[in-house]
């Protein structure tokens, strides 16, 4: 794939369609939480829709994803079915993980969602293993590993990047730099100016790139390059996507630690309305976008109803999936 190719109207629409799906699902979850119709710990990806969608359009279901608690945008970009996702958030037997993983531990191998971890930074070493398996088997699968800027300060980050570079693994480390790790701003936690600068420490096999994750074109182009590089066996990329999270760390976080001027400036660059405007400018009509939204809303309604109508897990589930052989479960 030529990496200099600019975003065609069709590709832009594909990115926006996926981003809108993420955006509307996130909106729905926040509405459900606000009105007390859902009780879950929730980490909104609001503001990070475009970067996930721009990466997602380059991946297929055979590619692997490892992500974190703030990973609903990544999971949707990877194609997880809405019903499985909603039912898992509701802790239902029909959920992706039969209600045993929950919001922070979503797995859905059919769409390539292999691990969602609640432990900061721990996904990177696992992503290497998935990528190593593809390399050994001679498959052209790409492993995408998503994490935050805070995660880049965990020791596992360094161990994983070093190994990935040494072994030239087909993995993309996508650091979604939203400026904060919980309540601590980037500058108070991270000594290097850019996360991607750290790639230099891992030699020529590791490519470091910083991109505006809110710019669909820049993100699409950088993603295309990283995917092509991994797929062709050229090695890993540390791709830092600069972004912002508008809803704070967790749902209900008042975000008092974010300076108002900083927040306002970020909001002025909200990628969703900007991308919508770009789609309209490319020749898509308001009516078409309205239809698109209605269609996604209908899918969400269906998924929510499915989750609500689904049974809770059988109590016997507590004895299952501990070991392969259920008789191995403790007395």
């Amino acid at each position, binding site marked *: 794939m030529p990496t200099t190719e600019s975003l065609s109207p069709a590709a832009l629409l594909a990115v926006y369609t996926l981003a809108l799906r993420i955006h509307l699902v996130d909106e729905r979850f926040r509405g459900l939480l606000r009105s007390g119709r859902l009780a879950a710990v929730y980490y909104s990806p609001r503001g990070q829709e475009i970067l996930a969608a721009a990466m997602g359009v380059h991946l297929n279901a055979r590619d692997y994803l490892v992500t974190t608690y703030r990973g609903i945008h990544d999971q949707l970009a990877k194609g997880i079915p809405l019903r499985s996702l909603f039912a898992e958030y509701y802790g239902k037997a029909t959920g992706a993980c039969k209600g045993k993983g929950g919001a922070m531990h979503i797995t859905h191998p059919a769409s390539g969602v292999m691990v969602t971890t609640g432990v900061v930074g721990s996904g990177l070493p696992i992503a290497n293993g998935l990528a190593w398996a593809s390399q050994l088997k001679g498959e052209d699968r790409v492993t995408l590993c998503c994490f935050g800027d805070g995660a880049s300060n965990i020791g596992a980050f360094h161990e994983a990047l070093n*190994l990935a570079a040494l072994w030239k693994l087909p993995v993309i480390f996508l650091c979604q730099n939203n400026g904060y790790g919980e309540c601590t701003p980037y500058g108070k936690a991270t000594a290097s100016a850019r996360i991607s600068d750290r790639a230099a420490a891992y030699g020529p096999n590791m490519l470091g790139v910083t991109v505006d994750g809110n710019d669909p074109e820049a993100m699409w182009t950088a993603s295309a390059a990283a995917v092509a590089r991994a797929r062709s066996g050229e090695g890993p990329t540390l791709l830092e996507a600069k972004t912002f999270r508008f809803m704070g760390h967790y749902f209900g976080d008042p975000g008092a630690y974010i300076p108002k001027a900083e927040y306002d400036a970020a909001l002025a660059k909200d990628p969703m309305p900007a991308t919508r405007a770009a789609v309209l400018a490319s020749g898509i009509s308001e009516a078409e976008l309205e239809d698109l939204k209605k269609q996604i809303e209908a899918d969400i309604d269906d998924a929510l109803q499915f989750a609500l109508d689904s049974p809770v897990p059988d109590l016997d589930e507590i004895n299952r999936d501990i070991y392969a052989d259920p008789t191995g479960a403790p007395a």
Partner: protein
Amino acid sequence: MNAPTAATTATKTISFTEAYSRALHDAMEMDPRVIMLGEDIADEEGGGVFKVTKGLSTKFGSRVRTTPISEQAIVGAAVGAALAGLRPVAEIMLMNFITVPMDQIVNHAAKLRFMSGGQTHVPITIRTRTGAGAGTAGQHSDMLEAWFAHVAGMKVVIPSSPADAYGLLLGCIFDEDPCLFIEDAMTRTQTGPEPEKGKIIPLGQANVAREGTDVTVIGYGRPLRDTLVIAEKLAAEGISVEVLDLRTVSPLDTDSILKSVAKTQRAVVVHEAPRSFGAGAEVAARIQEHLYSELKAPVLRVASRDVTVPFAKVLEQEYLYKPSAIEASIRQTLNGKGRR
């Protein structure tokens, strides 16, 4: 000891190290999904600091990889490769260093099957080595098996003979769950009858290493070898000791424990790990829960001391469980306090 019989002299013997090595070789030959990673394990780096993996990279090429000194990366890569359908065997050079990749083991390897509702699973084997007695002191000698037995989803194996070591290591590699296989540094050159090629010992099954009727000694690993010598000695006095080798610390084979203790009505539990909160406490508790009214004496424990493994030879010996304590405990359950 009795003179060896014709049958035992005819049997070839191998050491523990040879047994581990053979199991790894045979597993790789049996199944192309078996891959290996760890520090210094390839032949260019000497085939592992304990030489267990010697020859494997030469024969199996890129399926055997030397890694950087990055324990989180090692176990994480094993977890990921297992999720993708391979059967990785990761070496953590010494058990104390397993504190470094705890997150990968406890939060990921052990739990992904459950948290994913059975959609994914992590059939990895982590081989590690430990044991006090060689003067390696506080950070190179710990027996930490109880930590892992406490986490749902992990399987923990400690063999007490070379033949078992071979069969159990194959058992771990071909098991569908994450396994921790613990090699005893102090017995590595000891020998025993050689195993049958390719014979897998399934996990979770204890083995009656010696039949007896008066008291059951339950344990695993090195103290079990001491126990067999003691049992032989006591047999000369007419004391019949049954020796139950757990082989798998977790999941614990409760049925075999109860079956044996129901017969002998007396039990001593032995392990090298420190006494408090160890596997012995769990075994003793299960016996008590199920067989309280049938016991003729309290269940006794023999273990090492609840201190950091010291360096000075005299202190290290003071730390370690003592074979004499195994013998004394057996006699105590037969004669001493608590007998009805």
